[in-house]
């Protein structure tokens, strides 16, 4: 497993711009992220969470500064267009995570199968391995796709809004599975809107076109940081939180 102090991602003054755009979508990113951490990227829509993911997967090169990713990355996109009408079981889908490591002439063997079953049991679906993907509930399908990501065994795991639109039971299972990955020594980076989820992370990175704050939740989630992070975004905050008042009454512009 990864050493706790082993830094897997290094960014210094990195900024990212989409082709044709006049200003960068995300700037001033300086981060050192080690293994064995659960990092939440917190920010509004358009704040740069997905842009940073694209940088981490290598899809988007930094326009300025440097971003170094020292280990393989696997990625669970938010809007999966996985097809529920496909003739595949939960196990089949999970096994797709092992395609990259196998040469084409190698069928999935016993090792791959037991790893896939292990990944399914981490998301609480050990008993549904042979169920058709299309017959599972939405939350269960998300968990299968998480298992597909887990089985890739990458030291860095990126997840875009893994809890969005998921039933509470599945959300709990997913949350626990992410912690399990963290405990295995992996660097787990989760993009989220959910401040409650952020409070339970090892580290929070607040993004709003730039890194507003980064650090342990206790330090980073101050009212002023949240105000700056969510300047233009009012509706997505959970109700009943003390941060709500801060954000609802102050506009940045």
């Amino acid at each position, binding site marked *: 497993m990864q050493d706790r102090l082993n830094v897997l991602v290094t960014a210094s003054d990195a900024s990212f711009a989409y082709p044709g755009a006049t200003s960068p979508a995300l700037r001033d990113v300086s981060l050192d992220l080690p293994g064995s951490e659960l990092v939440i990227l917190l920010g509004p829509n358009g704040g740069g969470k997905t842009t940073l993911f694209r940088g981490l997967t290598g899809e988007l090169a930094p326009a300025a500064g440097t971003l170094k990713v020292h280990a393989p990355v696997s990625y669970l*996109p938010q809007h999966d267009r996985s097809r529920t009408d496909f*003739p595949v*079981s939960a196990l089949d889908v999970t096994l*797709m995570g092992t395609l990259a490591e196998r040469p084409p002439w190698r069928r999935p063997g016993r090792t791959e199968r037991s790893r896939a079953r292990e990944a399914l049991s981490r998301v609480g679906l050990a008993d549904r391995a042979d169920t058709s993907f299309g017959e599972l509930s939405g939350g269960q399908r998300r968990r299968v796709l998480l298992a597909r990501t887990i089985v*890739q065994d990458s030291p860095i795991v990126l997840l875009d809004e893994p809890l969005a639109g998921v039933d509470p039971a599945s959300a709990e299972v997913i949350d626990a599975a992410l912690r399990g990955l963290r405990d295995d020594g992996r660097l787990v980076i989760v993009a989220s809107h959910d401040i409650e989820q952020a409070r339970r992370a090892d580290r929070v990175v607040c993004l709003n076109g730039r890194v507003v704050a980064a650090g342990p939740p206790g330090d980073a989630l101050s009212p002023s940081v949240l105000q700056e992070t969510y300047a233009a975004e009012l509706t997505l905050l959970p109700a009943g939180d003390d941060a709500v008042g801060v954000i609802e009454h102050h506009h940045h512009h």
Partner: protein
Amino acid sequence: MFVVSAISHLGISGATSRLPGFATLESPAELLDPLFARRALLAVLLAAVIGGALGTTIVLRDLPFFTHAVGAGAYPTMVAAAALGMSLAIAAQLGALVFAALLWLLTRGSTADARQGDSRTGLLVATALAAGAVLAEVLAGSGSGFARSPESMLFGSVLTVGKSELVAAAATAALCLPLVTLLSGRWLAVGFDPEAVGAMRISRYDGVLLPLVAIASASILPLTGALMAGALMVIPAATARMLFDRTAMITAAAVALAVVSGLFGLYLSLAFDLPAGASIAAVAGGLFALAAIAVSVRSRADRISRPNRRDNHRTMATASLAALVVLPALSGCGGSSGQTTAATGDANNDRVPVTATTTHAADIVRQIGGNHVATTTMLKPGADPHEFEPKPSDVAALADARVIFRSGGAIDSWLQPAIDAAGGGRGPIDLSDAAVLLPSDAAAGDSASNGESFNAHWFLDPVNLEAVGKRVRDELTKADPATRETYRANAARYAQRTRAADTALARCAKRLSAKQRVIISDHNEFDYLAARYEFKVAARLQPASGGEPSVADLQRAVAAARASGAGAVVTSAGESGKVARAVANRLRVPLLELYGDSLAPGDGGGPHTSLDAIEFNLDRIAAAVSSGAVRCKTG
């Protein structure tokens, strides 16, 4: 058991049993020439294996449209190859590869799946068809004759498969199976979740998939015809997908269903003398319908009680598949008993078996041979000679024939593969050799210069009928010297009748003024008639190449027609003649449906001999241009 019975009927086990429902043969052995049967069977099996193996990926990746579009996509290269005299099969493969490469370039790098490439495929198809049509028009000037549509260029039949096509299909199968085995898991993973391709860190291998599907489609099309290619590449996998919920099962079932459809379709084709491609497609479609019914019955039963859904599903799937295999088997077995009505020894046995390609050729042979020959006509009256698919009985008749007469030129250029399928022993007699020929574009000169570019409708000139009659007399005499005197007498009588009719018709035409003897022709069918009776064809609406007329062509034709004061527009009965109708309406002259390529069907009205057709055509024209004052009916 069905498979066994079909194979035995195909003569693989040297069966001596009679084909049920097959009435035209004395002995099945004549039909079941090892060459013919083995090739047809091999073609079906290869096509089924390729189609079944690749079909699952095609269906799950939403590529049926692409699969079907490959034929159209290969059109430009095939037109070019035809003009340059290169192999059409190689050109089809090259064109298919280019088509696939273009689609791959257009869809590459997008996270969209190939299914979202349908609009791009459509764009490419339209471009390819347009490019092919323009190319055909440009190259038509070079005088080389080639077929008019991509469909007819790719048209093939399992009954007339050539050795090189089988070799190409075998090579495709050899390429297909390992690649499908290696890569189908990746292709399906991409199709399952196209947006996560990057996340799964796998290559799409679409650069392999699209060319592979293109090559497979291009090698199955000429082998079996467009109908059967779709039937074997898409329908079995779609059927299997309804029945099973695991890809391995679907693939296995798709191959099995494709083989069953191919063999049973071939069996039906042989047993009931149906076109092979259509029979196979019908069986595949029938199996699909049965499976759909089975699945809907199951889901209804599920709704009523669903205690153990998955087990239920599997049982139903297995049961319905078993039923699908057994039902045809039962009907096959049932069919083979009690249908032993093959030709028994009747008067036919004393006659000389002769095969003619067209109704006109068959008529001349009957005029000379009388009841001493038994004539089989391959093209039915009114059939489009450009899209002919031989039936088993046609191949059998060719194998059986002592003499094969072809009309010659573009009308029956499909004959040679069918003769090859029949064993290839006897070369056809080309009747056009005995006729005085016009060039296909009559405006260019008086007589045909060379090669294939002559106008193939020589039989609408009585002088040609007389000359060709003599040629038929000589050939029949060679084949059956004992009846020499009868053939000579019949030929002499035919010559007399054609001459008498010609004189009468010429006299009738003379009653029309030179101004009245001006017509507009849809195609070039009536050039011989016009030349013989001194009609002027003021304009021809369709280009000689068979392509579509351009707007400029039409404007020129209408202007010329108007200036000439033509009294009628003539077209062949049964052709759509949309352009001819539009021009006739515009000029306010009658549109005449005459008999060109083909004589009238046996049971209805209309001319049944070439001489009658000439008279019928001239009579209609004379009546139209003289407002009914002049009729040319003799007798």
